[in-house]
């Protein structure tokens, strides 16, 4: 695994709705490996294209955005109140964040000193409207630099912890990394299928990038790459997959079973270990991509991670490498599904 690339991806800022600062990294990495890279203007997603020898098109997709918080108001004395979607407010007290105002401003999410906490208050979670960011700046300075609506992200700190790595936005920079590395690995490989790689915006909210870019591209088949839950503290194997046992292939209802079975066959053929995830919907872009226009046969590959949606998401590089290997081999051996009349 290219540690420096994952680190660069993890530490860049691409909150939902403002993903563009990560695009130069992606463009730079793909230079020389693909035939085209362009921005999908209407949704601010980025699409790469590598030509194959045949007619069929396959779209790999990974969302490029990270979970985010937003400034909802600026209080007296310059304390900044925030709101968020899909972030557990319980992880915030005592953490460091970055406010993306006119410049990046470091802040701390404070909490009452323990000495002053009353006996009934202990252990009750503080909701967002009771949290605030302390920048150490005067109210006038804060109002100069920060507006309602500015993004607030976790502070980046990519690191190795034992056998694994931790960092922010591992959801879904692992997916972004997997797409980049898969394209790179195809450099001198002859493949029939034409490959699109969609690095999509706003998955953590509306799926805008996936829905609209897929509408433009309208591939024959699609494979979404995202993360899923790993077994961890308070998550058993009923709901999670062990780290280090390979990628997870989704066997649910929203994806195309034939395409999924093919993916699993390739994994079996080349001895790539994998898990099987079952639920009706996946809660990823795969659910949405499959419903574009008159429908697109879609599959989903996920990399298990612990502590999802926190600054310390944890993963095993083995799982990432195996995901890339699986995607590369799948593309190399891909043949069209069904026949030309759309009889599946």
């Amino acid at each position, binding site marked *: 695994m290219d540690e420096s690339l994952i680190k660069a991806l993890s530490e860049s800022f691409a909150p939902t709705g403002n993903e563009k600062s990560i695009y130069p990294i992606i463009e730079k990495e793909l230079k020389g490996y693909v035939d085209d890279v362009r921005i999908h203007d209407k949704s601010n997603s980025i699409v790469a294209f590598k030509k194959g020898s045949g007619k069929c098109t396959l779209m790999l997709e990974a969302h490029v955005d990270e979970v985010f918080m937003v400034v909802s108001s600026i209080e007296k004395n310059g304390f900044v109140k925030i709101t968020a979607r899909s972030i557990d407010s319980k992880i915030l007290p005592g953490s460091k964040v970055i406010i993306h105002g006119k410049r990046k401003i470091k802040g701390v999410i404070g909490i009452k000193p323990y000495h002053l906490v009353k006996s009934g208050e202990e252990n009750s979670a503080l909701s967002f409207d009771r949290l605030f960011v302390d920048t150490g700046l005067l109210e006038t300075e804060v109002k100069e630099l920060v507006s309602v609506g500015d993004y607030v992200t976790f502070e980046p700190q990519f690191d190795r912890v034992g056998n694994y790595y931790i960092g922010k936005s591992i959801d879904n920079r692992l997916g972004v990394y997997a797409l980049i590395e898969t394209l790179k690995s195809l450099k001198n490989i002859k493949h029939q299928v034409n490959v699109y790689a969609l690095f999509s915006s706003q998955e953590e909210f509306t799926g805008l990038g996936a829905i609209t870019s897929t509408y433009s591209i309208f591939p024959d088949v699609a494979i979404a790459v995202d993360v899923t839950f790993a077994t961890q503290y308070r998550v058993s194997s009923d709901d999670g997959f062990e780290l280090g046992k390979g990628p997870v292939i989704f066997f649910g209802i929203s994806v195309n079973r034939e395409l999924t079975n093919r993916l699993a066959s390739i994994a079996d053929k080349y001895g790539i270990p994998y898990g099987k995830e079952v639920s009706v919907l996946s809660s990823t872009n795969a659910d949405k991509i499959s419903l574009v226009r008159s429908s*697109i046969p879609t599959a989903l590959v996920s990399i298990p991670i612990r502590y999802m949606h926190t600054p310390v998401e944890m993963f095993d590089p083995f799982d990432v490498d195996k995901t890339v290997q699986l995607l590369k081999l799948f593309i190399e051996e891909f043949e069209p599904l069904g026949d030309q009349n*759309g009889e599946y």
Partner: protein
Amino acid sequence: MANIELIKALSNAYGVSGFEDEVIEILKSEIKGYVDSFEVDGLKNLIAIKNLDSPKPKVMLNAHMDEVGLLVKGFTNDGFVKFTKVGGIDDRVLLGKRVVIGKNKVKGIVAVKPIHLQEANERKTVESARDMVIDVGAKSKEEVQKIVNIGDFIGFDVSFESLSDDTYIGKAFDDRLGCALVSEIIKEKFNFPLIGLFSSQEEVGLRGATVGAFKYTPDISITLEGTISADFPDVSEHEKCTTLGNGPVITIKDNSVITDHKLREKLVKIAERLKIPYQFKQVFVGGTDSSRIQLTKSGVKVLVVAVPVRYIHSPVSLFKLSDYENTKKLIIEFLKSL
């Protein structure tokens, strides 16, 4: 007269959301020769078309092929099957029921603790489906893994039967009755373009219908459903929704759509003129494919008409043939008037 054999075949066929193949085969052989062509799309919608070159406004008849069921999620160390629910199923209908698993129809039952061994408080509640297991008679995890796969569908093992000459029981009348209606009606001669959308994955979010009207987009669409009839004890007067025997149910509004006023008025006028009994759906709940078809491209005018069915989304449901007949008659007369 209603084709009871068709309804029976459709009801007995397995078609848990995402696995509608058996139902597709029955429908294809039923309508072959009566339509110009049919195709199955990437989401397993079956789309039949007729008279597409006619310049008149296009009409769609829609019914969903899928039924609620379960999905194999994993195995316990002692050889039982863990599952997840597909579609809205009340946990309380599952205990002690017979099921079949996968293409090979492996038989199983939903395990239940004998009453003798239950504590007093255990008798009062039903556990969550998450904690239930299915017993396929295997002795070990290795053994069950040989015959059941993760991701296999699980359907209720229930056979179609008649209780009297007007009353029938079986599974999946929501919406195999709609499928039977569409296939019977689509065989009639019409001079306008007719599209039959037998949709997939309705029970898991109206997914088939979200894409099913994109390729051949109608001007008007009629969704034919099997709808809630709660006309039995334990339900308060204004929650009964519809009454068995009172004829086709016309939806004014549900959680997903308000049906087209003008088309609905026309439908009612025809029913009154021809003295076909009809009723309105009086609990405005539920969501139907019509809401997705309605929003396809620049919009479609939609109607929802249903056969009242008791106990939908449970293993055994019940309907009256006279309601089915009257629904068929009403729709055919409505189409003739267009």
